[in-house]
């Protein structure tokens, strides 16, 4: 069972690595941020799989931290990309 879970973790890692090609190709900053978002989601799945395969329980905490950091990274990207505090009012109408 451990071998299967490690193999699945390796597959997810490969998918994340392929997704990072989007950072090279762009074209926009939003596309690059999406690849970072994929790194967050895939990293969580990979950490959970490795944790279950090796029996190291603390990887779950690392995955939880990664989930938080990926969300904060994207919010920081939005604030810097739009150059203004996140304000809905300017976007409507």
């Amino acid at each position, binding site marked *: *069972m451990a071998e*299967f*879970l490690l193999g*699945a973790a390796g*597959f*997810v890692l490969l*998918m*994340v690595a*392929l*997704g990072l*090609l*989007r950072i090279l190709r762009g074209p*926009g*900053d*939003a*596309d690059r*941020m*999406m*690849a970072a*978002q*994929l790194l*967050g*989601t*895939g990293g*969580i*799945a990979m950490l*959970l*799989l490795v944790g*279950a395969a090796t029996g190291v*329980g603390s990887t*779950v905490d690392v*995955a*939880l931290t990664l*989930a*938080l950091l*990926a*969300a904060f990274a*994207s*919010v920081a*990207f*939005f604030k810097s*990309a*739009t150059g203004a505090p*996140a304000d809905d009012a300017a*976007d409507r109408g």
Partner: protein
Amino acid sequence: MSLLDLFTVIAVCAGAFFFLAGTVGLLRFPDALTRLHALTKADNLGLGLVVLGLLPHADSVLGGLKLVAIWLLALLASGAVSQLIARAARRTDPRR
């Protein structure tokens, strides 16, 4: 191989397939909003299936709940963040 192991194999394989779909969508789709659509849906479904597959291996009920909580946090964060990324993509490219 017990029935629970079989369940784990099926669910984790399905999750890995959705990660494959998300990556292919991110690389192949033509513009930012369609790529965002592929990424935010497929990957979070893949993560959910992986978590579902790992639930039988959780040490305790609390450990299983923690796994589900991580998935829910990822869902919430992804839902909010995809709105922000779409808004940023639209602002930087006024044609949309």
